[in-house]
């Protein structure tokens, strides 16, 4: 089982490589990837250096080009695919059927992975993508329970990658428009959920408010902890009651079920967080490397170390973590 770590810049890439990643995933500095944040991502010089650094240490590099191209700007996506292929990366992670079609035709020897943003959650969807675009891996959306993941793996010949740690998308990735409903920009169209330029933090007499595109997502007491505001983690009134109507501000941590993930036949486990820091990826890569190695040696005896969970808790967004949809009761 491969450990796939995020890198938002060259120092993060090097940290991930140095601390146990089997692969790192990166993006270009534009809206062709789903972490299109100011100051983040790679220019050509940095990619060349990053690929060399990783390959010299036998670590793979994947490039995410996983947003949806519109006619106006289409060439940006095809150019991104050509650039990624030119750098000799180990795989390109794509979501858009049009871009997949282009990549499969133009670069038949480059490995294509179906991004989580591609929304394939069943063997028929994955089979369709495999038949037409020859995908070599699928990253599955966070909607399946672990038994469902295991069943999916048995039903498809495409290796399956799942998210193991980081921010938790509550909705099927690639089919969530909540961000654009409030801000005009979504992961699909712009490469960001809750784009920072549309987020406002305000101290008012009633408390601290966070807004997206003018919509009030949260109003909390002064001093109460606040995560990055997304619509799905906001607090609203439902039938007169104030609550997190969609999900609590939690993040994903699957360390506790790692033996089951391994037994399910998962090919790769992905760490979310290209927008996070070098410290984040260092800590998370270290813990997960150790955990995966220990679990592989003796899955029956595997227990997450207290120190691992402490380290992960320090770098988690929000105070709580959850196994999320992998556990049926979450549904």
């Amino acid at each position, binding site marked *: 089982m491969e450990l796939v770590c995020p890198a938002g810049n060259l120092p993060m890439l090097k940290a991930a490589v140095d601390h146990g990643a089997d692969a790192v995933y990166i993006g270009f500095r534009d809206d062709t990837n789903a972490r299109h944040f100011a100051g983040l991502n790679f220019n050509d010089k940095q990619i060349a250096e990053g690929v060399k650094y990783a390959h010299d240490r036998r670590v793979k590099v994947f490039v995410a080009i996983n947003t*949806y*191209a*519109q*006619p*106006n700007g*289409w060439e940006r996506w095809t150019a991104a695919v050509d650039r990624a292929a030119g750098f000799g990366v180990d795989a390109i992670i794509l*979501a*858009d*059927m*049009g*871009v997949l*079609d*282009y990549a499969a035709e133009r670069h038949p020897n480059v490995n294509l992975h179906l991004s989580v943003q591609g*929304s*394939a959650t*069943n*063997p*028929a*969807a994955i089979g*369709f*993508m495999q038949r*037409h675009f020859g995908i070599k891996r699928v990253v599955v959306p*966070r*909607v*399946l329970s672990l038994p*469902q993941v295991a069943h999916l793996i048995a039903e498809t010949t495409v290796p399956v990658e799942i998210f193991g740690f980081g921010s938790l998308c509550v*909705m*099927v990735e690639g*089919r*969530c*428009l*909540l961000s*654009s*409903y*409030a*801000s*005009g920009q*979504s992961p*699909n*169209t712009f490469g960001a959920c809750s784009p920072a330029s549309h987020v406002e933090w305000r101290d008012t007499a009633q408390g601290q408010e966070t807004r997206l*595109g003018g*919509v*009030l*997502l*949260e*109003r909390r007491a002064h001093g109460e902890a606040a995560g990055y505001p997304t*619509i799905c983690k*906001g607090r*609203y*009134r*439902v*039938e007169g009651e*104030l*609550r997190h*109507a*969609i*999900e609590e501000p939690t993040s994903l941590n699957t360390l506790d079920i790692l033996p089951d993930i391994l037994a399910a036949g998962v090919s790769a486990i992905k760490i979310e967080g290209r927008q996070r820091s070098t410290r984040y990826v260092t800590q998370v890569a270290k813990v997960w490397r150790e955990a995966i190695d220990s679990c592989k040696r003796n899955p029956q005896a595997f227990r997450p170390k207290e120190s691992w969970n402490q380290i992960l808790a320090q770098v988690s967004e929000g105070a709580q973590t959850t196994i999320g*949809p992998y556990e049926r009761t*979450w*549904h």
Partner: protein
Amino acid sequence: MSDLNHSAPRLSLGPILYLWPREQVFDFYAELLETPVDVIYLGETICSKRRQLKPEDYWELAERVIAAGKQAVISTLALIESDGELKTLKRICADQRFMIEAGDLAALDFLEGRSFVAGHSINLYNQRTLAFLAARGLKRWVMPVELGRATAADLLQQRPEGVECEVFAFGRLPLAYSARCFTAYNRGLGKDNCEFCCGDYPDGLTVTTQEGQEFLSLNGIQTQSASTHTLLSALDEVRALGVDILRISPQSQHTAEVVRTFASCLNEELDAVEGTARLREWAPSGLCDGYWTGQSGYRVGLPG
């Protein structure tokens, strides 16, 4: 491009997105068959646990739609997770009598090689995807709802021969799907023992911000906008672009009147300002059109 190049768009009725009692569903279609809607989409698209109507019931309704001189299209689940869902989907897609609307990518696997419709939950954002699917049997696509008029115009200029374009023109916007049932979650229930509580909310469960803005509507695993999206004020533009079909999404009240209002405006018997004023009466959380005009979806950018 002049208005004269294109005939007026036809009207469609989208699938019922909510859990309504069986009798109400049949009554609803009996009423809507009498309206000037040209295409009717039938089928469960949200939750496989809702079985008050089976595929056979929808097929029977489809025969009635055809007998009324309209086109019937069978819609399918937007999110396929389980074997059971996949099996039902396969069975629906194996039926050759009716056109089928794909909701999940899985449906494309089963529909390839025959005529089909790509629903708005299939991510068709560009001309290459359009051409790719057209080569596999696509005859119509429903634009993803976050795409506005600029992208619609570009896609319509490059569309393959014989492929129709449908846009979501009235209703609460379908915004997201999840593994979690949010209706059950807010009632303190799990999805596996949901007690079909979504049936208590015939137009979804409204989520209001802490300052009183009616923001979202929870419908099982689907999250919708609370505001009702409408393109009634954009009919001239829609016609000039060459959009073929305008979708009206069913709501528990006034859907037939909404259809008649759109039809009257298309026939120029009613002007859009007056029509929109009527629609406002039937949109409990207000109207929006921001996606079409290239803004946040909840905003209003059209006159009227």
